[in-house]
């Protein structure tokens, strides 16, 4: 919506969130010399990148994007990631969990999930490239520990989050001052909900990987969730496979991100579906958050996004 179409000078909530996020992204670049933005190819990071491009247009993006590649990927998402950075002329830095395992820097966890071990790879990648600010697409509505996080979230020399000792965040005055070795995580989408993200994708026609839209896929059921049969996600003996029309609500590590039954083939269908859903996106699709009440808090303290 443009101002001239809005004689009452009132921003819609989506436009207000957009302006807030653009302000935050510009503030990072103005205050911190060596920022980078996480870009996994997922919907939240696609929206964040879209906002970042707007924030500096017609200039190029003044920072690189970073992907921590667990090696457990959906092919469609990696293809999308590469196509996006090529199309827009953006520098992509990849931190590879597989390479870190091969070098003996991290050890594969017994359950095969690489969610937790991507954290040391993220920290090492940031250190290697000397990034002092990392922007991420995490939202406060996703999870209860994230609900407590600041927009500018201070991390110590070890990349750790101390939830009880956070900087007060007043008005739109973000304190970005850090000592050498410390970093700031920044969350421009803090105040967005899943429905805001999808509504914005519709408004702005943001491109996404195809797996977010309904398609037929060979799946099996585990812990009440539907997992697509995948190189890194194989059914056990007692888990029969079948073909189902599904889509992905979130895109994470392919070994533990579940699909949901859906007939949402286009963006209008998805907005309607998300508006009506009664289960949170993480509850519906993430095996990793089901470990304990405080699983996310514990991972965040270690430096997880």
């Amino acid at each position, binding site marked *: 919506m443009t101002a001239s179409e809005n004689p009452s000078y009132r921003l819609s909530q989506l*436009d*207000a969130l957009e302006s807030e996020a653009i302000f935050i992204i510009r503030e990072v670049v103005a205050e911190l010399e060596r920022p980078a933005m996480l870009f996994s190819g997922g919907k939240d990071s696609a929206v964040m990148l879209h906002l970042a491009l707007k924030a500096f247009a017609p200039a190029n993006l003044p920072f690189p994007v970073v992907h921590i590649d667990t090696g457990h990927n959906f092919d469609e998402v990696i293809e999308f990631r590469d196509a996006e950075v090529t199309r827009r002329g953006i520098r992509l830095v990849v931190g590879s969990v597989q390479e870190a395992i091969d070098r003996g820097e991290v050890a594969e966890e017994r359950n095969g999930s690489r969610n937790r071990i991507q954290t040391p790879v993220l920290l090492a990648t940031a250190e290697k490239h000397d990034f002092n600010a990392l922007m991420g697409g995490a939202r406060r509505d996703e999870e209860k*520990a994230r609900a407590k996080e600041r927009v500018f979230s201070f991390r110590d020399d070890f990349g750790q989050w101390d939830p009880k000792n956070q900087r007060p*965040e007043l008005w739109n005055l973000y304190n970005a001052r850090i000592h050498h070795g410390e970093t700031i995580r920044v969350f421009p989408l803090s105040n967005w909900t899943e429905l805001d993200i999808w509504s914005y994708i519709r408004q702005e026609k943001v491109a996404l990987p195809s797996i977010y839209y309904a398609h037929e896929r060979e799946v099996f059921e585990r812990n009440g969730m539907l997992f697509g049969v995948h190189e890194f996600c194989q059914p056990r003996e007692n888990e029969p496979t079948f073909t189902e029309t599904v889509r992905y609500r979130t895109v994470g590590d392919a070994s533990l991100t579940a699909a949901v039954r859906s007939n949402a083939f286009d963006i209008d269908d998805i907005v309607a579906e998300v508006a009506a859903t009664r289960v949170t996106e993480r509850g519906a699709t993430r095996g990793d958050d089901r470990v304990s*009440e405080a699983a996310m808090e514990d991972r965040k303290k270690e430096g997880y996004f």
Partner: protein
Amino acid sequence: MDLLRFATAGSVDDGKSTLIGRLLFDSKSIFTDQLEDLERTSVARGSEYTDLALLTDGLRAEREQGITIDVAYRYFATPRRKFIIADTPGHIQYTRNMVTGASTSDLSIILIDARKGLVEQSRRHAFLVSLLQVPHLVVAVNKMDLVDWSQEVFEAIREEFSNYAAKLNIADVSVIPVSALTGENVVTRSTQMDWYEGPSLLHHLENVHIASDRNLVDMRFPVQYVIRPQSAAHHDYRGYAGQIAGGVVKVGDDVVVLPSGLPTKVTAIDAPGGPVEEAYAPMSVVIRLEDDVDISRGDMICRPHNQAIVSQDVEAMICWMGDSPMRAGMKFGIKHTTRSARVLVKDLYYEMNINTLHRNQGAAELNLNEVGRVRLRTTVPLLADEYHRNRLTGGFILIDETTNATVAAGMIVGVQ
């Protein structure tokens, strides 16, 4: 659909978390997996009913100790509005959290336990709402079920609060009787309190008029970042990016750039959706100017006949948030709009007792969570308005230059 940001403040037992849980639950903003999680946790703790309060406690320590430590943000939407709740703890030791939550809020909810009436904490919350100039206040008189839905009890509390609020500067106050536990008057009108003719809490939140809260008169554009593409296609492009902090700006407007005072004209405005003829607070835009004047981050674009004050001497109320006390003579970093500088605390005039409103003129220092009036001298001029005219050009933070911690929230009350 527009956006309403509101803050709640309250303590463990006045039902704040239950009220928020009730708003989320009755507006169908709690998801089934969250509810199952709550039910499991409630049963595990031996609770007889699903404890909606558990929904708002995000950190391990909070869930274990049954307390709220920090500001938590919650989101819900109705067909009319999207809401962002800044849920803050109410105890005096968390004043800085309440101030933080109030700083961005359009509205604040103060909970009062109907059995106890106004307590010290209620007065403190009302004072902070006034100090932070939150435009709307709702006093929710809770636990009406425990006083037999008594109109007399409610009216007595309402009168006592009105008498107290008269000493403060609060524009709009509504008092609503509710029971967060049973849901009466939270989302739907109560059937137990026929004597109450006002709206339910949610109805009020959906309809309270916030459009005129923004200052659309005084155009203020703090320059955040200068966009100069290093490319052949945009060789001569030079745009000033920022978020409009007040007023309306149009293409063709005569403007001045502070602090230099150089006059120029707006030639183009690029909004997130493309070029526009006019833009207004709080839009993030890029403004292009007719003259190639020297402008950098921290400068401000205003109208020639309506300018921010340019001064190095600032009178302010501050809420101290540092662990060690503040005294006159100390130096700090300051961040005000997009401008950063250093300040010297020239004077601490008084510390204000935020429970009694008594001014302690002899105070030698301000301790954590204390509020006081100070005079500051800045290394470079600030481009400022009084806080009551514009929260974004009147608010600032102080930063400890050794630890980099945010140690104070400041509200400008006068500029020399």
